[in-house]
């Protein structure tokens, strides 16, 4: 990750119509609060996305139902999950299917709010697949690279929200001044 990557990433998101909020991990809950509609379901950070997120100060607002039933999911306006990776050149986020339900929570809703650590942004697609290769081989990872909202042009015009979310918001956790913390988080991830 470099500053250039972050600025490319946010510019791409802007092109895709994806709203971006950026701030330190401590402000995660506030940023999510502003981005999420009502009712909201989510997957606890760390159970969704990189393990290191569990130890970071980033949290979700209390109003988010983090143990949703299928009924909650069906009724939800917003789903909140973490992403494991961002791809700067494309404005893509890597969502990992996990037992905690990141995939359904990010998919069966009208708005998806994605929490991503700035440190997890890579420059381009080849970097993303270099990251995915070992994960796929060693851990059978299932990853969706999501770029903007769900879309279709099958009904005679471009429409967002074909089957998946109509809108996407990204909450970007900056790591300025918290470089050590981020490293520690990575290390923790490694140990686990």
């Amino acid at each position, binding site marked *: 990750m470099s500053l250039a990557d972050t600025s490319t990433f946010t510019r791409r998101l802007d092109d895709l119509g994806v709203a971006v909020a950026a701030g330190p991990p401590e402000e995660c809950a506030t940023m999510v609060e502003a981005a999420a509609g009502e009712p909201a379901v989510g*997957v606890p950070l760390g159970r969704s996305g990189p393990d290191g997120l569990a130890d970071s100060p980033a949290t979700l607002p209390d109003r988010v139902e983090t143990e949703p039933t299928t009924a909650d999911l069906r009724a939800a306006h917003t789903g909140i999950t973490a992403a494991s990776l961002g791809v700067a050149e494309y404005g893509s986020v890597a969502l990992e299917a996990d037992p905690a339900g990141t995939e359904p929570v990010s998919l069966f809703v009208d708005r998806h709010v994605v929490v991503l650590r700035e440190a997890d942004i890579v420059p381009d697609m080849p970097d993303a697949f270099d990251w995915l*290769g070992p994960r796929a081989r060693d851990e059978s990872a299932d990853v*969706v690279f*999501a770029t903007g909202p769900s879309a279709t042009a099958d*009904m005679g015009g471009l429409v967002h929200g*074909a*089957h998946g979310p109509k809108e996407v918001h990204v909450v970007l956790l900056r790591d300025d001044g918290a470089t050590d913390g981020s490293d520690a988080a990575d290390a923790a991830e490694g140990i686990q």
Partner: protein
Amino acid sequence: MSSDAEAGASDAAGAGDPDRETKAERIRELLATEGDAVAENTRGFNDGRYESTGRLDDYEALKDEARAIKEDAIERLPELIDEVRETVEANGGTVYLADDAADANRYIREVAADRGAERAVKSKSMTSEEIEVNDALATDGVDVVETDLGEWVLQLADEEPSHIVAPAIHKSREAIAELFAERFDPDDPPETAEELTMFARERLGELIEDADLGMTGANFVAADSGTMLLVTSEGNARKTVTATDTHVAVAGVEKLVPTVEEFSPFVELIGRSGTGQDVTSYISTLTPPVDSPVPDFEDDETPLADGSDADRDFHLVLIDNGRLAMRDDPELKETLYCIRCSACSNACGNFQSVGGHAFGGETYSGGIATGWEAGIEGLDTAAEFNDLCTGCSRCVPACPVGIDIPWINTAVRDRINRGEADASQLDWAFEELVPDEEPGGLDLATRLVGNYATLAKWGHRTAPIANRLANAGPVRAIAERVAGIDRRRELPEFARESLVDWFEARGGPAVPADEATRAAVVYPDTATNYVDVERGKATVRALEALGVHVRVPDLPGSGRPPLSQGMVATAEAAAEDLYAGLAPHLDAGRDVVVIEPSDLATFRREYERFLPVDSYERLADASYDAMEYVFGLLENGADPAALRAPSEGTGPVASGKRIAYHPHCQARTVEVGEYATATFERLGYDVRVSDTECCGMAGSFGYKTDYYELSVDVGEPLREQFGDTDRTVVAPGTSCTEQLDALLDAAPRHPIEVIAPRG
């Protein structure tokens, strides 16, 4: 259709050909009903491709990388199949290698029965269309629901896809609204694209919740991990996999690549090449069985994360269905590199006009479909639509894995010609006119066009009579009935004095070799030599004015006309003859200047297959497009004042300064189309270049009765752009000239005729 075609072929010398009429009628109907929707969408995709690939810094390098991965993967295919079996099984899934469609369907029906599946939901998959698994499951009472919105529309309408990526491209919004109103009779019928989409989302959402079995295709499968990649935008594939506990993925064996890392160039290329999206909304890279909990939509109490008790089950059904045989077929093998992006459909003038319902076989459509259908279904299926590839070659630079799609069409056409040849035809009557290398009984229209060089020579020898006869009513009626040449087209008029005779009569080279800057042979291609002699003379004048020692030797045809008819052996013999004729000139260090762009393209592209590599390279390196050559001379210090500058003044005279230029399709592909523009501009002309990549005439294509209307429709955008221009219209291609003449009612000239000094 082979039996019909044979009947047609043997009947060709007699009265009307029923098969031919049917084809013309079908095309006319599609032009009227689906043509506009298909044209708007495909042209939009094609423009998008140019924009999106233009944003890549390393487009050509990515294409090379993608090509290399495919070559390697297909080379090692048996090994990759073994490897993916191991990795998928290690993940807890199952791999089934199905010999053919029936074998695959039997296996999938068993999986569905074991699961007790009542409903299967599917995301879009051309391979599943190929094996017709929906019908197979339906016979067991399984309710199969297509969840891709376009596919769902077609399922409701009981229609076939007209495009491999955007299957309902032929249906307008109004037609979809009508379909929904009719099928569901909703209180508040959806009308806008937004309303229609939300209506479909809700309906399908309910159906997905209750589904037991999820079926997907796979765009790529990595052997090293068993990871499959799905390229989608709607999110239905994600839901199909997540909402069901049993996942069946159907993929042709050719979808295997060695490693996950090798997905990367394809992810960057596939959306850009197809619909012009840098990347689609969702690139799912799944290593199934997936890790998501299985949502139990009937249980409202238990948290989702706990999942139902059911374990996830995964079956990768790899389909052979002719592919491993294609791998051993030198002409069809390249088809297996295809990533089904649809670039060749969208780039194709004929496809833009009629779509996949005409330009397609049982499953696949567009230029590459000839390879797929020939390999999977057989020659008969390919023969039904293979004619629609005119060899314009605009798909060649569009293909992200560099498949020579026109060549596959040519090679398959050759097989069709040979397969369908009927020895009972009265070939002896035309023996002198069709001295080709092809088997007796070949369709007469094919042979007449394929032997155009001989025909033209004969026509020019008897020019006054031949011309008068050729356009006489009764003769045209016979030509239409016997050879399928549409009487609405004007036939080219043969010149009494050929270019070669003119050059000899005027005393040969005007610039002596020892005073010349360069020495060149102007290639007297068949059209220039016998029909459009003026452009040949203009080329000689322009080159001599720039100090070139010019010769115009008598040389045989290039083989382009027989090539366009799939007469490969004849074309190859022509290449050898022409090379033999040119070799002494190449030995003497003379350049070869080519007036007809399709001949230059043949030298630079197809001759690679016909000549020894040294000969091919020698000729390709020494040959130039006429305008490319002039541009090069000017760049190297020749005096532009020797050429004709635009007229000064105002009014009608000044219109000569303003040029409307239509580059030839194949010239665009071999990247020489821009030299005319550059040369004109250097001389002070104001040039407007046509946006239309292929005029639709494509050699003999537009002459054929079956395709006359299609040909005119393909040229329509050209008429729209240049129809009322006051510019001087120029086009280097003979067939473009004929098409423009018909469309604009003004005979265009070759660019060299505008800039050459007056004769």
